[in-house]
């Protein structure tokens, strides 16, 4: 695998990860429920789920810090389920970063090299190289306490990859950063991954983070993987209502089936041959996929009519809450460009919203 601009940087062949039937219970709580998961070599896979869903437990099983009750974990061909953490050779970025406070930045990064018997001068050279890779050249002499949050995050990353592991694990790596830095780092992490080509498993509860960085997202709930797909499919075609609610905003409108057609109230839905899951009874409506129709404007797709209940200005967009005749409500997100703002309806106005056939997603209500 060649990676532009990193001639000196060679990590071993990226390894696939195979998880089979991994189960972990804490007393009566099932943290992981017969989990199967394949991470392709060189892939960036994100475990996404609410707190308590088991995503962190799964990552800890991969790192070797949690001993599951049963199951199998393979890195490449090697079964690692009983292997001690220090023999697994995976890099890990901790949520707390876990940078050793008694060591300097360079000593922190050189730590795994020292343990592997690399001579000090060579270790320091490689630590400096890793620092440059995470855009912090020349900071090796600093103490960890003197670093900002973003710098610590980068040092933790440098330490996790300096010994050229074939698998990289990240536990909520960006959760301690403020929003702007977080969004910047998401793109940087992704870029670094593309450069190193290392198999990466990242845990997060932040759906935007998952959508931005991942090749694939595994959505986890109650110790099970409920959907494993590319970001766009997870967002556009969530497998369940849980996924739809967790990833992105949406309203759910009940639909009725009659023969081959589905009806929203009395309005037939335009689906244009999209696949519909068995027993689908809900229409998922993402606010940004709704278009506000001008008076008399014809729409290609399903038209939803209602009255404006509330208008919320949010800077980059305007959220228009619309009450429907059936008592439900949907929100439409309108861009805040000048033209759109001028055409904005007033509270109480009757409006029509259009949903393109490709944006209409039907799913089954799995909420108890």
């Amino acid at each position: 695998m060649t990676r532009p601009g990193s001639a000196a940087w060679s990590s071993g062949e990226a390894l696939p990860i195979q998880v089979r039937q991994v189960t972990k219970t804490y007393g009566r709580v099932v943290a992981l429920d017969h989990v199967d998961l394949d991470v392709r070599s060189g892939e960036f896979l994100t475990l996404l789920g609410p707190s308590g869903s088991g995503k962190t437990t799964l990552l800890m099983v991969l790192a070797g810090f949690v001993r599951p009750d049963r199951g199998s974990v393979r890195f490449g061909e090697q079964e690692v389920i009983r292997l001690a953490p220090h023999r697994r050779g995976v890099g890990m970025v901790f949520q707390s970063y876990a940078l050793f406070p008694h060591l300097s930045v360079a000593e922190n990064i050189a730590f795994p090299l020292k343990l592997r018997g690399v001579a000090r001068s060579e270790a320091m050279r490689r630590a400096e190289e890793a620092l440059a890779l995470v855009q912090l050249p020349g900071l090796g002499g600093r103490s960890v306490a003197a670093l900002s949050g973003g710098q610590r995050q980068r040092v933790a990353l440098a330490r996790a990859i300096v010994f050229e592991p074939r698998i990289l694990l990240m536990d909520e790596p960006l959760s301690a950063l403020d929003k702007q830095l977080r969004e910047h780092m998401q793109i940087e992490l992704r870029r670094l991954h593309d450069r190193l080509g290392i198999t990466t498993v990242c845990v997060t509860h932040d759906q935007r983070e998952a959508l931005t960085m991942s090749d694939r997202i595994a959505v986890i709930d109650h110790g099970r993987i409920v959907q494993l797909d590319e970001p766009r499919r997870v967002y556009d075609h969530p497998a369940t209502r849980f996924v739809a609610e967790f990833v992105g905003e949406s309203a759910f409108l009940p639909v009725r089936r009659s023969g081959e057609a589905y009806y929203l109230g009395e309005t037939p839905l335009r689906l244009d041959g999209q696949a519909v899951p068995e027993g689908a009874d809900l229409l998922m409506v993402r606010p940004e996929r709704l278009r506000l129709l001008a008076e008399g404007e014809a729409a290609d797709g399903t038209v939803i009519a209602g009255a404006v209940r509330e208008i919320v200005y949010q800077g980059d967009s305007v959220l228009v809450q619309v009450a429907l005749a059936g008592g439900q409500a949907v929100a439409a997100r309108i861009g805040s460009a000048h033209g759109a703002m001028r055409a904005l309806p007033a509270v109480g106005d009757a409006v029509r919203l259009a949903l393109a056939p490709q944006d209409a997603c039907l799913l089954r209500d799995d909420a108890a």
Partner: protein
Amino acid sequence: MRPDGRAPLEAADNAAALARDARAERWRLFGLSLPALLLIVLVMVVPVGWLFLLSFQDEDGALSLANYRRLIEQPSYGRILFASFEISLMVTAICAVLGYALAYLMSQLPPRRAGLLMLGVLMPFWTSILVRTYAWLVLLQRDGIVNNLGIGLGLWRAPLVLVYNMQGTIIGLVHIMLPFLVLPLYGAMRAIDRDYVRAAANLGASPVQVFWHVFLPLSRAGLFAGATITFILCLGSYVTPAVLGGGKVVMAANAVATDVEMYFSWGPASAFGVVLLAVTALLLLIASRFARLDRIFGGGA
């Protein structure tokens, strides 16, 4: 002008009043801490000052350095001071080894079980020092439980002389001092984030390497704090060497007591006390070069 075009509001400059409020608040705070300050002056500064004065007076109450001259001229005082340091150092070293192991065990146990052990550590605090010391006398004497057990198990033949000597004093002092070492050390160990240990293991450190490269350095401040407290408390011990030393072990406090009780000579006793105080202060000063004192006395964590 305000944006709406109306005239600006009448704005009063409250600087003087605000400064007055700030001053009043400072005085109130001072007033609140006054009782504690007075108490410290009364029970600490006054007696120590008086001791200081006494040490510079001869028998007739005139100012003189006679007491200090005596300390230098009589070799017994130097020997006693040296013995006090020797015993304290030994007790601290033994406590450090035992205490580190105990604190480490407690820090690795789940909090509930660690709490039970902590109860065991603190239990001796609930009984008087005198009771504990006499209890050791019973255990360690010629015909005591320890000797009977040792001989019964065939570990040694003749009864060991475990009491009324240096050994007995050190055993007793280690028992009394151990909690002072364990408490700050345990605090420091509990404060070590589990992620550090995990990160070290993840980076390739075996359990032994994790201990040497991460756990020990991170708990060093707590160990240092506990050792300093132990050493200083040990220097001033009186009851244990008096009871378990059987008159053969004389530490600084015992010498002071003898001077006052038998010869009723406050001058030499005060001078010796001042020297002990000065030496302890000096030690703390040196210790503070290696660790911050506020950490030593602030729980070590």
